């Protein structure tokens, strides 16, 4: 049970998106609707868990001097797997996410966790950490996608919540809305952290 803290760490206290502010590019790009982000986080979580697992397993074999290069090979391998699988089985989603699937390689969350956590831990905590970080990323992206979709389109997960002819703020599903929503979310997170002393 004591290992559960590795998992919950990424959910709130060290949420990769809202507290550590890592992996900003996909966060801004794929959150035009709540459902859009899900494919992205599923891919990222898969890569995160398996690269953490492999790096933790190989930590004694990888020489310290070339560790970054070795981590990148491991991460890039899993990204290639995801890329090919998504291209074959979910071509529509693959087309929507486009360039951001191969770019998971340079997502700083993954390399950051490899460097800061997986290379020093044993296998089980590394998997839990990867899962926790992945789910923290999921929560943040889904929250942001829901806010943007609600304000910009009047719906959440494609379910219309406002009347058909209601005026929505279109700007929120366009690029500027991404920056502004993200800015306010981080500000709120800072405020909550201060208030509840987490």
């Amino acid at each position, binding site marked *: 049970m004591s290992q559960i803290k590795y998992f919950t760490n990424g959910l709130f206290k060290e949420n990769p998106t809202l507290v550590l502010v890592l992996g900003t590019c996909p966060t801004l790009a794929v959150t035009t609707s709540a459902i859009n982000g899900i494919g992205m986080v599923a891919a990222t979580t898969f890569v995160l868990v398996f690269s953490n697992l492999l790096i933790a397993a190989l930590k004694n074999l990888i020489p310290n001097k070339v560790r970054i*290069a070795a981590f990148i090979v491991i991460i890039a391998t899993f990204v290639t797997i995801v890329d090919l699988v998504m291209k074959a089985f979910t071509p529509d989603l693959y087309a929507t996410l486009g360039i951001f699937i*191969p*770019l998971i390689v340079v997502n700083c969350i993954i390399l950051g966790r490899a460097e800061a956590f997986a290379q020093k831990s044993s296998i089980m905590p590394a998997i839990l950490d990867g899962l926790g970080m992945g789910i923290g990323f999921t929560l943040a992206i889904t929250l942001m996608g829901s806010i943007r979709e609600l304000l910009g389109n009047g719906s959440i997960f494609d379910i219309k919540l406002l009347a058909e002819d209601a005026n929505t703020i279109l700007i929120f599903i*366009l*690029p500027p809305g*991404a920056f502004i929503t993200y800015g306010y979310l*981080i500000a709120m997170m800072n405020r909550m952290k201060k208030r509840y002393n987490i």
Partner: protein
Amino acid sequence: MEFVSIIILALLVNNVVLAQFLGICPFLGVSQKVSTSVGMGAAVVFVMALANLVTYLIQYYILVPLHIEFMQTITFIFIIAFLVQVVEIILKKAAPSLYMALGIYLPLITTNCAVLGIAILAVQKNYNLIESVVYASAIAAGFTLAMILMAGIREQMENTGYPSGMKGFPISLIIAGLLSLAFMGFAGLV
């Protein structure tokens, strides 16, 4: 005419940071001062143009003939990391003054997702060698432009009062949002 439209599209209409969301990390991290933004921008222009040149050659003379296009991601990220190292070593020897100016920004470029992203996009768009390099240079110039604008605003912001909870990332993101709003005015230019 084709080059002009590629340049205007890449520089203003589809600005890499403000419309395509690539390279956000250095954009937020290094844009505190105008002078550092210029240094970072120059380093990015240099590496991006070079990276697109080399990745083009690798793609069409190694990956495609051998039918191993699926190795694209792994190969490209390695080429970029390698290039950054080589550029750093050569500059140190050949142009020490330039190295002093760009030196600290060079290692940061490996983690700039715009470099890998643009190399892959140029392949997807079927650009030829010259178009690819022109495209990369224009994209990098757009990155520099956005960074300098951002740094200028942030320098002014230091003397302005705003809620303390907005310090750091939140206020930077909101400034970026307003800049992005301004850049939307360029849509339909080409």
